[in-house]
C-alpha cells in the first residue's frame, strides 16, 4: 500500500516498517530459525565460512527480489531476470576478454540488461501483451543469446582487477554488500517517497483508475521493468566478478526465487502491494531455511526444492489471505 505519509528519516522509516505486522512476523520467524539452527548445528552454522557462504549467495537474490517487487507492485511479473543475468555476464565477460576496459565493459553489460528491460516494458505497456508471456519469451531469447554468444562455455580469463570488484573490502566487508545495501535502501526510499515510482502502487492497484487520474501508467510500467532487468544486470556483474567468469547457465531459476521472496515479503500477484524490506526478509528467510536444510541433511541439492516448497506455501497463504480479505 502506498505510503504517502513520509517518515522523517531513514531510521524512522526502518522502525515504522518493523511495526507493520508482516515484516515483524518475518523477523520473528527468521530469528526463530536462526536460534534453532544455532542450537542444533551451532558449530557449523555459526562459523564465518558458513555466513560468508550465505551472504554471498543472497547478494544476487536480494537485488533481483527487489526488482521483482517493483514489477509485482505494478501487477506484472518478470520471468526473464535469470536469463538477463546470464546474458549480461556473458557479454561483459566477452568484452573483457576482448580487452575492453573494465568500466566500459560493465557499462555495456548493464546497457544490455536495460535493453532487455526495455523490451519487456515496451511489450507490456504499449503492446499490452500479458507480462508472463512477454517475459517468458524474452527469457528464452536472452538465455539463447547467451548460449550462442558463449557457445555454452565458461568465459573465463578475465582481468584480475575485475575480480576485485567483488573481492575488494571496505572496513572488512566486501564491496558488493555495500552496493546492495545502498541499492536496496535507495529503491525502498524512492518507492515510498518519490512520486514517480510511488505511482506504481496506484497503477498496480487499479490501472484504469490510475489512467483516469492522470497518471502515466505506461511510463511507470516501462520503468518498472527497466529496474527489474537492471537489478539482474548488477547481480551479473557481481557474480561474474566473484566467480571470474561469464556463463550462460547463471541464474537458472533465479526468477522463481525472486518471486518467492517478494511474495513472502508481502507482494501480491494482483498488484498494489509489496515492500523492499519484506522482500529482503524473504530472501534471508529462504536462505536460512535452505542453509538449514543443507546442514541438517548434508545435501546442497535440496536448496531448490526447498525454495519451491516455500514459494508454494507463500502462494497458497497469500491466496487464502486474499480470499479472506474479499479481494478477488
Amino acid at each position, binding site marked *: 500500500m502506498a505510503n504517502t505519509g513520509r517518515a522523517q528519516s531513514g531510521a524512522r522509516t526502518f522502525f515504522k516498517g518493523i511495526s507493520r505486522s508482516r515484516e515483524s512476523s518475518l523477523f520473528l520467524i527468521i530469528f526463530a530459525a536462526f536460534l534453532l539452527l544455532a542450537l542444533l548445528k551451532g558449530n557449523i552454522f555459526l562459523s564465518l565460512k558458513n555466513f560468508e557462504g550465505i551472504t554471498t549467495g543472497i547478494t544476487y537474490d536480494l537485488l533481483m527480489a527487489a526488482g521483482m517487487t517493483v514489477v509485482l507492485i505494478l501487477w506484472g511479473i518478470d520471468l526473464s531476470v535469470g536469463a538477463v543475468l546470464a546474458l549480461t555476464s556473458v557479454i561483459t565477460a566477452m568484452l573483457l576478454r576482448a580487452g575492453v576496459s573494465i568500466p566500459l565493459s560493465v557499462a555495456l553489460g548493464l546497457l544490455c540488461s536495460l535493453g532487455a528491460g526495455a523490451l519487456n516494458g515496451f511489450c507490456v505497456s504499449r503492446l499490452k501483451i500479458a507480462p508472463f*508471456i512477454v517475459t517468458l*519469451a524474452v527469457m*528464452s531469447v536472452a538465455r539463447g543469446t547467451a548460449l550462442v554468444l558463449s557457445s555454452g562455455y565458461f568465459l573465463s580469463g578475465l582481468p584480475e582487477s575485475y575480480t576485485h570488484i567483488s573481492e575488494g573490502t571496505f572496513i572488512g566487508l566486501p564491496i558488493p554488500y555495500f552496493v546492495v545495501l545502498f541499492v536496496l535502501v535507495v529503491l525502498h526510499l524512492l518507492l515510498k517517497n518519490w512520486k514517480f515510482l510511488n505511482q506504481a502502487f496506484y497503477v498496480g492497484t487499479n490501472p484504469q483508475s490510475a489512467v483516469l487520474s492522470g497518471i502515466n501508467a505506461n511510463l511507470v510500467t516501462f520503468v518498472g521493468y527497466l529496474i527489474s532487468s537492471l537489478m539482474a544486470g548488477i547481480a551479473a556483474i557481481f557474480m561474474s566478478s566473484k566467480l571470474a567468469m561469464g556463463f550462460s547457465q547463471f541464474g537458472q531459476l533465479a526468477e*522463481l526465487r525472486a518471486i518467492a521472496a517478494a511474495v513472502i515479503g508481502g507482494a501480491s500477484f494482483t498488484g498494489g502491494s509489496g515492500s523492499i524490506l519484506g522482500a529482503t526478509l524473504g530472501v534471508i528467510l529462504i536462505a536460512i531455511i535452505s542453509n538449514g536444510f543443507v546442514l541438517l541433511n548434508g545435501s546442497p541439492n535440496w536448496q*531448490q526444492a526447498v*525454495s*519451491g516448497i516455500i514459494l508454494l506455501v507463500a502462494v497458497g497463504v497469500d491466496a487464502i489471505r486474499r480470499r479472506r480479505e474479499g479481494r478477488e
Partner: protein
Amino acid sequence: MSDISTTTDRSLRGRIFFPLLRAMGIQNFCLIAIIILVFGGMSLFVANFFSPANFEVLVMGFIFEAIMALGMTLVIISGGIDLSVSAVLGFSAIMIAFFFKARFPIALALACTFLIAACIGLFNAWMTNTLRVHPFIATLAMMLTIRGLALAISNGENVTSDFPNQFLFLGQGRLFGLPFPIVLFIVLAIVIGVLLKHHRYFQQVYFIGDNSRAARLSGIRVESFIYFIFMLSSILACTSGVLTASLYDNASNSYGINSELRVITAVVLGGTSIVKGGTGTIFGTVLGIIFMSIVYNAFVMAGINPYYETIVIGSILLIAVFLVEFFRKLETRIQ
C-alpha cells in the same frame, strides 16, 4: 454475415479451396502453407532432408514435447496453463529409475510413477480451484518445486539403473516400422483428438474456456473437469518422462528443461488462444508440432548453432501469440 458460400460456386476455388479454408480456419491454413513452403525449401537446399531417416530424426526430436502438447491443448482451451509439465517429465524419469533400482516389476514401477504424476496434477488443480490461485502462478511454483525435488532426490547425478529390457522397448523399440514413441503419439493424438471433437465430456472444455460462468449455469461441473485436465496433462508429461528415460537408458534431472516453452509455442501456433479460452483443436496443435519439429530439425540439418534455438523459439512464441489474437480480432471484425 460472413458466410463463404459454396453452393453456387462450382469452380475449383469453390469446391475445394473454400470449404477447406472454412473447415480449418485461416490460421491453420496459413500454417499448413508455411509448413509446405519450409519443407519444400529445406528439401531443395539441404541434402537428404526428404528421406525416411531424416524424417525419423525430425519427428523424434520433438516427440516428447508433442505428447505433452496434447494435454497442454486441453488445459489452455479451458483457460488455464500448465507450466509444470517439463518438471514432471524430469521428475518422472528419475522416479521410474529409482523404482527400477528398487527392483520393482515393470507394471508396478509404471503404476507408481503415473500415480505420483497424477497427484501433482491433482495438486495443481486444487490450487487453481480451491485456493483460487491463478494456474500460471500455481504451476510455476510447482515447476520449481518438482525440479528441485528431482535434483534433491537424484543428488544431482544421473540415475543409471538397470532398466529391464522390456522397459527399454518403450523408448527404443519399434512397432510397424516406426519407433514406439511415435506410434504412441499417433495413437494418443487420434484418440484425444477424436474425444475432444466428439465426446460430450470433452466438449465441455470449450464451454468452460469460453464462459465458465455460463457453463456452470448450464449444469457443467467445472471444478471436477479442471481436476481431470490437469491430471491428464501431468500424466502425459509423465509418459514423456518415462519414454525419455527408456530411450536414453538413463535418468537425468535435466530432462525436459525449457520444454514447457516449446510445448506452449506449438499449441499456440496451432490456433489455441492463450488470451481467451474456448478455442483450439488437436489438429491445430499437431500442425504446430510439425512446424516446431521442422524448425528444430532445420537447425540440425543446416548446421546452425543449436543455441540459436532458444532465441528463435522465444521469438516464435511472441509472434504466435500476437498472430492468434490478430486473427481472432480479424474474424470478429469480418462480421
